[in-house]
């Protein structure tokens, strides 16, 4: 009788211990899941912000060739005169951008225009940054040529 009672008691103790273990495991799992979703939400927000910046830059009427309301046809002469302060006025501070024609390596300045194909604005320097890119066209004002390039925009802390 006593043994049966002891066994029942042991059963309840083991059951309680097991239930507590399961509860702690669930708590740890939920904590880990919360941290995971916070980090993935942050990543999703960064991508949303980057997509917005890419669209803003590539569709800006100040940079596109006249007649291309749909955007994505950046004019090289407009890119060459654009400065970091202009970009900050357009999309805010903490942003950098680069337009690079495929196979080009020469950075554009007013002195070497149009024999160049890379435009950089507000370089991040050594700061940590997040960047996204998309293809764009670059219209060469003098030769009336249309080339393909990559627009990269990013933001840093």
């Amino acid at each position, binding site marked *: 009788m006593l043994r049966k009672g002891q066994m029942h008691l042991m059963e309840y103790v083991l059951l309680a211990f*097991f*239930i507590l273990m*399961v509860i702690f495991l669930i708590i740890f*799992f939920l904590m880990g*899941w919360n941290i995971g979703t916070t980090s993935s939400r942050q990543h999703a927000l960064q991508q949303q912000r980057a997509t917005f910046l890419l*669209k803003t830059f590539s569709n800006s009427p100040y940079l596109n060739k006249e007649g291309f309301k749909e955007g994505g046809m950046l004019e090289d002469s407009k890119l060459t005169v654009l400065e970091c302060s202009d970009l900050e006025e357009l999309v805010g501070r903490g942003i950098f951008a680069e337009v690079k024609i*495929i196979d080009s390596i020469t950075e554009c300045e007013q002195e070497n225009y149009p024999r160049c194909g890379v435009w950089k604005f507000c370089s991040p320097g050594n700061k940590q940054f997040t960047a996204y890119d*998309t293809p764009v066209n670059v219209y060469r004002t003098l030769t009336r040529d*249309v080339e393909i390039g990559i627009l990269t925009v990013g933001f840093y802390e």
Partner: protein
Amino acid sequence: MIVLIIIIFIGVGLFLLISSLTTEGTEYYNLYTHDLLVSVMRVKTGYKNPCETVSDTLYCAMTRVERQCKYSMDETIKKDCREVADEVTPEVIRKVLTTKPSLDYYMIIQPEDPEHLGGEIITYGNPDVQNRGKTWTANERVLRYQTNLQIQLILTSI
């Protein structure tokens, strides 16, 4: 009883896990695919009319089979529209995608009316892309007098 409790907790945990899963980056990759397709179509090929841009060249390749295009830098060089299309289109896409080595593509060019032009289709890239799980697709129409073209670009992660 304990088994029932465990099953309930696992069920709740799975529900929370599944509801937290999101399709990451869809908007960005949709934008990228669309911009890639539009940008490629607008690029000048280096050849003269009717092969001035990639979209012109593809249209010529589909509709004016025997038409030839002169190279701008050397007019003695003449190629069929289809030759120019095959030379330029995949090369431009390949060059852009060197900046995204994790992506593969498939492009389909066909007349809007499939019965027109004998239902011919021009394709570039890897056809297996269509059968991959996660893909991003962009569509463009090339509007012309004789027939419109439908151009579809499909991207996927390798």
